[in-house]
């Protein structure tokens, strides 16, 4: 918790991260129907409104600003093809240091362009090499200070600041749902809750096409699960990260698994009712809350990001699952 409070101070003073809005999801005849006349209020913590459209800038900024300035000058690096890479690259660009990014060689063009737009220098490698960097926390050929996208303690602390803001805005919150990818977001936010308000239920949200946390929690130990690629590319892998799993099982009250259909519907609902664009991973917590999986009370859903390809978005608007 100390680390998270320190992170809050760091981020408050820096121009790279904003204190995002926490709004109530309005006009919800659907919720009452879905949850069965219970008293449910769904709130949205809009991390999709951060610079680079995801919460990742919190962890990236905190990690970089916690470094010794001489070390920071030498640049940073990471292994990621998604929002973390974009968040790190952008923050590095704003600070004025280099950013090297290890990506799997099948990374699609639109994601490469997004990282390059923020001056990220890309290093495509075979998937196994990339996965190795994730598990080994680095790659010897990569120049700069390596920041792990999920399990770097400063990244988790940065993510935790979301939890502090939630408690400031809704002190009597009953439950918080965060999408679970690498686990950094869920662990950061849940740590805050368990430290300051243990009665708050903390859930992870996963998609049924790749739900390693749910599988691991059920088995009582780390286990692999079936992995099917989907439009929800921000979360969902074959397994959980070992260093995160122990923390996760202590601070989380469970994993809520939603279908692709529920997730796509939630993306559409957020557009129609909240007028914001969320990506699949960002909408998964809302899907879980709407399906009644988080129970009753004031439920805060962390809308982690909004980086959804426009083509996929158009399919969602037509009522399809991309």
């Amino acid at each position, binding site marked *: 918790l100390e680390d998270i409070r320190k992170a809050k101070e760091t981020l408050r003073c820096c121009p790279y991260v904003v204190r995002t809005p926490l*709004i109530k999801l309005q*006009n919800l005849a659907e919720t009452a129907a879905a949850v069965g006349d219970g008293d449910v209020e769904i709130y949205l913590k809009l991390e999709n409104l951060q610079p680079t459209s995801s919460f990742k800038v919190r962890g990236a900024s905190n990690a970089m600003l916690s470094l010794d300035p001489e070390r920071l000058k030498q640049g940073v690096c990471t292994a990621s093809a998604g929002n973390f890479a974009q968040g790190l690259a952008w923050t590095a660009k704003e600070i004025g240091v280099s950013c090297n990014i290890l990506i799997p060689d099948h990374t699609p063009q639109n994601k490469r362009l997004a990282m390059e737009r923020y001056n990220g220098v890309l290093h495509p490698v075979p998937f196994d090499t990339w996965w190795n960097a994730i598990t080994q926390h680095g790659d010897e050929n990569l120049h700069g200070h390596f920041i792990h996208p999920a399990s770097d303690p400063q990244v988790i602390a940065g993510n935790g600041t979301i939890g502090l803001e939630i408690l400031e805005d809704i002190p009597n919150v009953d439950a918080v749902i965060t999408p679970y990818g690498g686990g950094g977001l869920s662990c950061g936010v849940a740590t805050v809750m368990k430290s300051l308000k243990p009665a708050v239920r903390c859930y992870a949200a996963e998609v049924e096409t790749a739900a390693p946390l749910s599988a691991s929690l059920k088995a009582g130990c780390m286990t692999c699960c079936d992995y099917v690629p989907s439009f929800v590319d921000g979360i969902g892998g074959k397994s959980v990260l070992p260093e995160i799993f122990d923390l996760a099982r202590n601070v989380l009250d469970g994993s809520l698994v939603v279908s692709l259909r529920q997730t796509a519907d939630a993306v559409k609902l957020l557009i129609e009712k909240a007028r914001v664009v969320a990506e699949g991973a960002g909408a998964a917590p809302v899907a879980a809350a709407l399906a009644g999986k988080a129970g009753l009370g004031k439920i805060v859903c962390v809308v982690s990001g909004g980086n959804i390809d426009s083509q996929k978005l158009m399919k969602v608007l037509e009522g399809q699952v991309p």
Partner: protein
Amino acid sequence: MQRSQLSGITGMELYFKKEFMQYTGSFKERGARNTLKQLSKTQTETGVIAASAGNHALALAYHGKQLGVSVTVVMPKLAPIMKVTACRDYEANVILFGEHIGESKDYATKLGEEKGLTYINGYDDPAVLAGQGTIGLEVIDQVPDVDAVVVPVGGGGLLAGIALAVKTLKPDVTVIGVESENCPGFSAAWKVGHPVKVPSMPTLADGLAVPMVGGNALATARKHVDKVLTVSENYIAIAILRLVEHEKAVVEGAGAAGLAACVAGLLPELKGKKVVIILCGGNIDTTVLGRCLERGLAADGRLCRFVVRVKDTPGGCAELTRILADMGACIKDIFHERAWVYSDIFSVEVSLIGCKLQTYIEKLL
């Protein structure tokens, strides 16, 4: 307000006033609530009436319910179903009447007189203008060193309120109004000095489709507004796409008009300046949003359409799709046409609409 990532593409330091995040999705709530709170006891007890196809109706209905004032809204027969339903959900008395808003307004005025209901004009009532003006106060508060404010114009209420507030506090700030070129009511009125009716064509900015601006709005705005210009449908669609992709914001055509003018290069004098753009509403029909995204992608060159002749034999189409797949392009729609191909009988025409980046399209052609 935070500096927008869209500042880069416009060359201005952009800030967005996000009125689409109000509860009913538009700034109209400010004027509506202010007016309802100023009603006399009798007026409150009898109730109010208004004609509106959209955001004003929603705002009145929502705040009427909150404040315990009975609200009747007359909406044109073709008003968007989502808005009609929403007004009913807020327990307003919804009457569908009129082929267009003019007819609804006449009916509402008559009905109001018959039943003693107070008519609330959504863009011309002084209390409404004052409510909208609070946006101007907030802009100066949130971006004290603003150079210019760009405001969408329909009936003129928003522009009038903001212009008055901003110019009173900081006379050096430029205030610019933007209308749809399909309904340039304010520009026309500005020229002759009083409200005039202009022909109104269908527009993406349906919230701005007010054929005749309000008299109070015009009189108030004229003293303070620096200029008014019109913007095309194409740029409104592009602006909607930009806001979705870069701000993750769902903004309706009317709300995107200000950004549209900047993206269209119609305000070169604002380059390098601090500009606040009012994103006035986000109540866009889902289907319309999808179409705007498509239009924007096409204008960007990220969606392209072409016709190619292939052999009408097994594998003819397969080779074409393989070439596209190898390039990483994805096919959105594909049409197979035989009857109207006039070359050899063994060929078929294939129309493709695909999505990929400009460079790949050039390579293909």
